[in-house]
């Protein structure tokens, strides 16, 4: 599973997340810092996504909830890469999640959902 990514978004373009069959406009690209994430509240007021920009300015979005602690904190983890694939390490107990697939790199049984992201110029 791979989430859609776009390269080199223009700074003021809007970032959108795919929700079932609609697109949610989240923020302008320049709100994102390469190597860090932000949390996104989904319209149901409960679910949250974690949106990341990597240093090559590619976008990724995964579920914000850390399955190990139950807390919605993945957006606050550190981004890294392993074998050329970006991941985020949970800030709580440090398990790593592949940003493109949501797969947990430290526990095959765990993972998080992923969202398609696009940039609306």
């Amino acid at each position: 599973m791979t989430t859609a990514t776009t390269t080199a978004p223009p700074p003021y373009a809007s970032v959108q997340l795919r929700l079932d069959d609609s697109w949610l406009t989240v923020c302008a690209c320049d709100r994102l810092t390469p190597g860090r994430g932000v949390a996104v509240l989904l319209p149901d007021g409960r679910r949250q996504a974690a949106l990341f920009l990597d240093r090559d300015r590619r976008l990724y979005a995964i579920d914000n909830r850390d399955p190990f602690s139950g807390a919605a904190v993945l957006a606050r983890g550190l981004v890294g890469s392993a074998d050329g694939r970006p991941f985020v390490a949970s800030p709580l107990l440090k398990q790593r999640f592949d940003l493109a697939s949501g797969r947990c790199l430290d526990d095959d049984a765990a993972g998080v959902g992923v969202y398609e992201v696009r940039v609306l110029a």
Partner: protein
Amino acid sequence: MDPARSLLPPLSRTLVLVGHGMVGQRFLEALAERGTTATHRVVVFAEEPRPAYDRVQLTSYFSGRTPDELSVTDTGFLAEHGIELHLADPVEHIDRKARTVTSRAGRTLTYDTLVLATGSAPFVPPVPGRDAPGCFVYRTVEDVLAIEAYARAGATTGAVVGGGLLGLEAAGALQGLGLGTHVVEFAPRLMPAQVDEGGGAALLRTLTGRGLTVHTGTGTQEILTDGADNTGGTGAVRGMRLSDGTELDVDLVVFSAGVRARDQLARECGLAVGERGGVVVDERCRTGDPRVYAIGECAQAADGRVYGLVAPGYEMAQTAAAAIAAHDATAASTTVFTGADTSTKLKLLGVDVASFGDAHGAAEGCLDVAYADSRSGTYKKLVVDADGTLLGGVLVGDTEAYGTLRALTGSVPPTPAEQLVLPAGAGAAPALGPEALPGDAVVCNCHNVTKDAVQACATLTEVKKCTKAGTGCGSCVRLIGQLLPESGDTGLCGCFPQTRQELYEIVRTLRIASYRELLDRHGREGARGGEGCETCKPAVASVIASLASAIGADGYVLDGEQAALQDTNDHFLANLQKNGSYSVVPRIPGGEITPDKLIVIGEVAREFGLYTKITGGQRIDLFGARVEQLPRIWARLVAAGFESGHAYGKALRTVKSCVGRTWCRYGVQDSVRMAIDLELRYRGLRAPHKLKSAVSGCARECAEARSKDFGVIATAGGWNLYVGGNGGAAPRHADLLAQDLDDAGLVRLVDRFLMFYIRTADRLERTSAWLERIDGGLDHVRDVVVHDSLGLCAELEALMADHVTHYRDEWAETLADPERLARFVSFVNAPEAPDPLVAFVPERGQIKPDLPLLTLRPPAPAPTPALEGATSR
């Protein structure tokens, strides 16, 4: 000629030696040893006006050695062996057919054997003005005399073209003559042929510290002269223009841009010369003409190299002498010269430099083990192959181990390379390597795991999983690594092959203030250009923060690229709790707090509904703050005079105090004041791990100072300083570092101790583990910080002074900057909406996280993932 000699029948054969340099003289000695001087008439032509002297020691002329003292020609030697020496009479022509040489003075001699030992000549790049008065080379005694005379006649500033071995010697000479001295080196580092990048950096630092102005990575474009054609101009050097456009005001220039073999005579008489110069000779130092030999720097040896060092030249002298003697005996000589080790050990401007073996790590798959401390000018690198076989190395600043290391080259040293490069310092001899440990030796003290148990596993991950070794304090991880098959990789993580300490040196010496630059330039091949990882990002952030002012980085941890490196705690300047909320810990220096401030903390806690607890560190922790509340909470606290307590950082936490002399009947010093002073001094200091301290007013030790990284206990005469204490998982009592210090002495020592720790500790290595790990342990640390054995103390103190001057409260700064505040939002699309998972339930009159909420099944599954690789605009 020896009168006794003239009575003997005339010698039947004539040997002519061209050149009386160091190698020529050694050759004559070898001839004499073999008796060849008794069977041959030996005639030597020398271009220089004096017999052979010690060119290697030429520079010692400036420290008072006279040309006579430099001589390597024993006055009796030539006479004793009937050797004829014609000084200042160079050979100008060789006729191989007629077997004659002709000298400048017109002497023509027929030879049976001819030996060329003409050495080499300095290369002077063809830049305009290079012949102007004031331009010199650095090769002979006459050169040195001329430079001295010119300098004394009124020169003030000199430049040396070439930052190699000889260039630096020349620079030292100019400095010795009292000239301001520049060195211009085309390569990006000094001594490019001998040392690697790290060694060059160490050298640069030391030499710059000694007043040399170094320009690397730039060439000399033109020597500017005081136009001779203009009225009054002398045509002499007045400056120099570099290829980067810089103009230097200099009145004396020394060219030392390499040497060229003096093979002119050989070329002219049709002997083969190498592509890059040098008379081609075989293993016995014989040219294509069986009667002609060439030795020393003018020869290209059988391995195709021209050696610019005296030791290989000496070997060639022996070889040629043996070949000539054997030729007489019509037996092939067994002495051959097939090439030499170019190991060198020198002292340049008082800096020891040595390189040996495969110093540049040219062998495939080889690894570097380096220790760099360029503040003290020490750089040591050993090149080992995958099995640990020592292949070569570079030593700058401390070449003590050169002999041993060179001897060990080609074998696996009994002590691991890591230990071999550590500074000799006082204290224990290097411990034996892990291979010497018995199988039942306990490798991990935390988990009581033996070497055998560790070696039953294949990787560190496996070791940790199966034996738990290395999962405690972590101090054994390095040793475990050495015991495992893929040993040798001491790198910080999958991204960097260097240790934290090495990265610290790289950041400091190359002034790299960007994580990306560090990763892309110094990371592992596969990690360059990538995102890094959660291990190295905060570690590098901490290094950059510790060195901020020294490397011109911004000390504010949240700015620019730094922002993305920080663990969430540093990023939000607060501690993340299990439900995603944060705790807030204002600094309460020494644990002393006014009622008014206590009230403010109470009011803030009440207003924001925070759980309040007195910590084990003598301060107050406020729990349960949501990320978007942090700025408002801190605005209140800052307004009341509080600062960040850095509970989130690998930084100074608290300096606990007991009540001390002011109130306590036993107290002998004011422990509260000292604790406050220390806490204010070191607040905000970034370190490999957190730092804790305490000050007790007497030996009853109510502040538990001996469980701290640096603990202070009052005495009647002042303060005792203890270091390396730890509570936590592996408690350790601190060791006494120094006694009865006065206030200033105490602070000075703590400054040094902390900075030395910050500089040399591994990532997440508390002072206790560090003290146990480093070679020489406490004794070594005492030598360095008390006795200044590495000459580092002034620098350590300066670094701390920098820290103290540049300290700013992170929270006050954050609040003052809307841009920085922008990140304190719960959601990028709903900045003030509370995280629905951060909810609380009551307990004992306060709140606690609603834990069942966290264990509920996550809400609705995530949306359908997109198609593989789909991109949309």
